[in-house]
């Protein structure tokens, strides 16, 4: 029984304690829960303006400043001003020490040198005397007048001697004859010149001869190649040259080629050969070749070449000298032969050649050809082919050179001999070719050259021109003789008059030229003197300025505030050095600072700035005057220039805050309330719910879009209304849906 009583007491006590605790917890549940919740600070959603402001710091400077410079290089005795001091116009800024300055000495020396230079120039100014020249002119005029009188007198005499004569006619005749004579003399000179030019051209042919000699020399050196020439087709014995005439269209074989033994098998035009190649074709055997053989055809043996007096050139008057003219030019056949001539040994007249020399190959007649006419028609047979072509020489400029027949013959004979030698060489007629033979050839050329040189200017054109001159002279003499001795006197007097007149004109021209030249020289000297005089005047002024008044003081040219004093007492600034700078406040003050391009874009010229670090004194007003590119950071920054008015001093550092025109927004929240996560910007708004124990506050996420921001607030759009509470900060991190505790 006792045990049961004890048990009920324990249960009762436990129940009392439990209920008591429950009661306490019930009463303080709100407080306890609030203690466990994160505390948040909130702000109201408002409607306000958002003004983005740009701040910057700059130094106030005066819009205008005046630099006081040292007038001379003089020592500063004392400085009467200090930086920041306000001065008025005329106030003494510096006191200079006594004594001449270096500039003064230099100016004096400069003036002295200038004056000396002026005097020297003035002394050396030239004087011009034209008296002698004018006298000479007067004398020349007098001589002219005398000559004119003499001429008139001679004319009178002439008129008197030939009474009734038409003097005008005589005059004109005399003049015409004289002109005719002059014309004939000019024609003679021209003819001589023409002949000379043609003669020069003839020397070109001699050059060609020399080329042949050179070519022959090569063949001499290649005797083996000469043996090749023996392999000409059957019956081939020689080549020849002839002249084709347009007259009869026949080929005349040279005299040393028996016509009965040859016939023409092919033709070759020299011009074509020239066009195809400038040098003879190369032989298969290696020769440089006058001959080109063709493998086809029969080989003839034992054909003797025509008789050739090989030693004949040596027997002529060829000199033994070895300095026969050697031409170095290659045998380029740059000119087609102008003329051809058949070297006829007979006395028959040679047909006038009109076409170029044509070199052909002739062969011995076929066995079936019993006869070959001495004169054959140019008609190459189709069945036969040429076996050999030869480039050969021609001679035949002679026809047009106005030579006499004897001269032509001389040349022709020489060349004929020469050609024979060539012929023999080519055909192998002479297998033994020695130096003497070559010498003979060169002698031939030499002789030819001598013959050409010895040709006198007996060209008939020259003779004809000389005859014309003689005739004109004779006609002039006839007229002169007709007038007699008075005419000669008249002519002499007239010539004397002309000479005197020319002399007078020459003297006058010389005098004029001299006067012009002298006047230019005088003008230059005068200008030099003027310049020197100007420099002297300037040097005098400088000297006066440097020494003038003995000003030992430098006074303020304008009123203002001393910005900087650059020299102290005892120093010696050089001339034009800046002693101090005076800020002139009359034009106001300026301030500038750099801002980023983004910041500058928000501003407009004319925006008013407020000073944020200057709380004392009267109001200071700053207005944005201009926005320019910052030279230090032209890519990223702009320089904002302000005009500053009010109670401000230069050198003060002001911090300005300038903002563009503000704009009102319906929903404005503090910047601290805006949060961002992966889903964008949002604010945590406070949502209140009633409960039996009081209000409960929950943080609710509201997504927003930030429209604009300034330093404190941001304008947003979202599901917010005026007066809503948004959380700005909290004691612990919170998220949407969390219960929170309001700070107040």
């Amino acid at each position, binding site marked *: 029984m006792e045990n049961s009583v004890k048990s009920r007491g324990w249960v009762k006590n436990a129940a009392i304690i439990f209920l008591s605790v429950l009661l306490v917890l019930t009463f303080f549940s709100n407080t306890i829960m609030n203690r466990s919740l994160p505390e948040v600070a909130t702000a109201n959603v408002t409607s306000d303006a958002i003004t983005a402001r740009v701040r910057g710091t700059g130094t106030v400077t005066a819009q205008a400043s005046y630099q006081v410079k040292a007038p001379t290089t003089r020592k500063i005795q004392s400085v009467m001003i200090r930086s920041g001091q306000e001065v008025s116009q005329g106030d003494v800024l510096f006191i200079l020490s006594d004594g001449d300055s270096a500039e003064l000495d230099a100016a004096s020396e400069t003036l002295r040198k200038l004056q000396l230079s002026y005097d020297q120039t003035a002394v050396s100014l030239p004087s011009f005397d034209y008296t002698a020249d004018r006298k000479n002119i007067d004398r020349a005029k007098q001589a002219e007048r005398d000559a004119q009188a003499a001429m008139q007198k001679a004319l009178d005499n002439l008129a008197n001697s030939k009474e009734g004569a038409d003097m005008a006619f005589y005059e004109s005749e005399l003049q015409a004859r004289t002109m005719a004579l002059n014309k004939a003399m000019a024609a003679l000179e021209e003819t001589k010149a023409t002949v000379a030019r043609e003669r020069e051209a003839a020397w070109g042919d001699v050059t060609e001869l020399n080329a042949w000699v050179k070519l022959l020399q090569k063949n001499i050196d290649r005797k083996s190649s000469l043996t090749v020439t023996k392999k000409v087709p059957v019956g081939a014995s020689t080549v020849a040259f002839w002249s084709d005439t347009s007259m009869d269209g026949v080929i005349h074989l040279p005299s040393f080629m028996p016509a009965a033994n040859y016939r023409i098998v092919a033709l070759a035009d020299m011009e074509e050969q020239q066009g195809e190649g400038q040098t003879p074709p190369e032989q298969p055997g290696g020769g440089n070749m006058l001959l080109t053989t063709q493998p086809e055809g029969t080989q003839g043996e034992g054909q003797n070449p025509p008789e050739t007096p090989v030693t004949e050139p040596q027997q002529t008057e060829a000199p033994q000298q070895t300095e026969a003219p050697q031409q170095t030019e290659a045998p380029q056949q740059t000119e087609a032969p102008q003329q051809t001539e058949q070297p006829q040994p007979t006395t028959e007249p040679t047909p006038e050649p009109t076409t170029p020399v044509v070199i052909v190959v002739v062969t011995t007649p076929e066995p079936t050809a019993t006869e070959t006419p001495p004169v054959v028609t140019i008609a190459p047979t189709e069945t036969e082919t040429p076996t050999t072509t030869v480039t050969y020489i021609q001679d035949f400029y002679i026809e047009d050179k106005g030579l006499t027949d004897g001269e032509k013959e001389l040349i022709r004979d020489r060349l004929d001999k020469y050609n024979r030698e060539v012929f023999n060489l080519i055909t192998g007629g002479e297998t033994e070719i020695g130096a003497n033979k070559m010498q003979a050839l060169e002698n031939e050329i030499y002789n030819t050259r001598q013959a050409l040189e010895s040709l006198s200017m007996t060209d008939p054109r020259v003779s004809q021109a000389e005859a014309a001159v003689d005739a004109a002279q004779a006609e002039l003499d006839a007229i002169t003789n007709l007038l007699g001795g008075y005419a000669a006197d008249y002519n002499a007097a007239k010539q004397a008059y002309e000479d005197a007149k020319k002399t007078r004109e020459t003297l006058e021209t010389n005098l004029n030229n001299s006067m012009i030249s002298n006047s230019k020289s005088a003008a230059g000297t005068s200008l030099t003197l003027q310049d020197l005089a100007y420099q002297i005047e300037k040097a005098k002024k400088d000297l006066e300025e440097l020494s003038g008044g003995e000003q030992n003081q430098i006074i303020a040219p304008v009123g203002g505030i001393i910005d900087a004093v650059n020299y102290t007492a005892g120093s010696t600034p050089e001339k034009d050095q800046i002693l101090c700078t005076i800020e002139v406040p009359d034009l106001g003050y300026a301030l500038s600072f750099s801002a980023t391009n983004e910041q500058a874009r928000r501003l407009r010229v004319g925006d008013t700035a407020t000073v*944020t670090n200057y709380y004392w004194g009267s109001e200071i007003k700053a207005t944005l005057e201009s926005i320019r590119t910052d030279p230090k950071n032209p890519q990223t920054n702009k320089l904002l220039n302000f005009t500053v008015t009010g109670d401000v001093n230069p050198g003060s550092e002001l911090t300005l805050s300038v903002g563009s025109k503000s704009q009102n927004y319906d929903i404005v929240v503090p910047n601290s309330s805006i949060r961002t996560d992966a889903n964008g910007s949002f604010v945590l708004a406070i949502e209140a719910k009633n409960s039996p124990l009081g209000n409960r506050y929950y943080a609710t996420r509201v997504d927003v879009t930030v429209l604009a921001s300034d330093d404190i607030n941001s304008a947003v759009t979202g599901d917010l209304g005026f007066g809503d509470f948004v959380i700005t900060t909290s004691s612990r991190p919170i*998220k949407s849906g969390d219960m929170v505790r309001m700070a107040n």
Partner: protein
Amino acid sequence: MRIGRYNFTKRAIWHCCCILMFILALVCILVINALAHRLDCQRTAEHWQGESKESFSQISCFIPAASSVTRNEIYGFRYKVLDALHTAALDADGTDGLWVDAWSREGKVKLSSSRASTDASAVAVDGEFFTFHRLRLLSGSYFRESDLMKDKVLLDEEIAWMLYGGTELEGMAIQVNGQDFLVGGVVEREQDAESRRAYTAGAGVYMSYDAYVKLTGDDRVDCYELVLAEPVKGFAKQTAESSFPLKGGEVVVNTGRFTLPRLISHIPKLGDRAIQSNGIRYPYWENAARIVEDRCSILLIVTVVFLLLPLITAAVFIVQLLRYGSEILTESVLLRIAEDAREAIRVRQRRRWEKRQGRHDA
């Protein structure tokens, strides 16, 4: 009888020890969990994710003091991040919200107000620094990268008290190294023990990196932080390691830093933490995280030790049960159950019989 009592006491003590150690192990686990959630700056990816379905990862890059990573290199890395997002085809709806970054540098400045002046440590920050470090605002607001003016500073409580004697300082003028700035607000520093222990710089100020570079000319970033969408595991870390100009620095993945696998893998490195040869000067929030990391690792070891005895005891008990369980079951438990069942049936049958015979008490 004495032997039986002794055995009973010994077994009771043993069982109590096991229970106590198990409880201690549970407490350790709870502490680890609390520590893991203590540092808010290590959970930026979680905050940034919000209600998004995209997963994010937080990366920190620490640059050695001898190296210099400038703003331009950071800007270059931003382009590479955009390229990486484009390559991963995540930018179909734009890149807003897919990533956020911030960088900072610590230094010293001289602060002056109309009342006083003092030297202070400065943290120059740029990007969305205060998204990573959500310091409690006592007044004012944070400054952001998009702000028009870069002349706002955030004071901590200590410097605010020293210079102004209060905390409601928003909009007030302050001079930093002689240049005019504006107080953007006052913040309260982290109150957790680890952060307070790691932060040794004294009174400090947060200011814009641009303004700091203008003041000092020192354009060298110490720390770069990034939260990046992670379509596949390791995407953010790989992007940072391959593209960020580390210059001998270190990349740390902050997300999941205090999870069990990371803590287990950290245990072997506990001793190596004392050796630091990379020349990196870690910011205080990283040092705080390392303190937490070490503490969690040690607690994990202690937890394992505490769990050792209860687990062994439980294992022994289970083996005994397995060994003797069938015998007891058949001889004791099942037999008793059968007897009880039979007795119950007999009583029930008797009641029915008595009821039919009218002998029921009712």
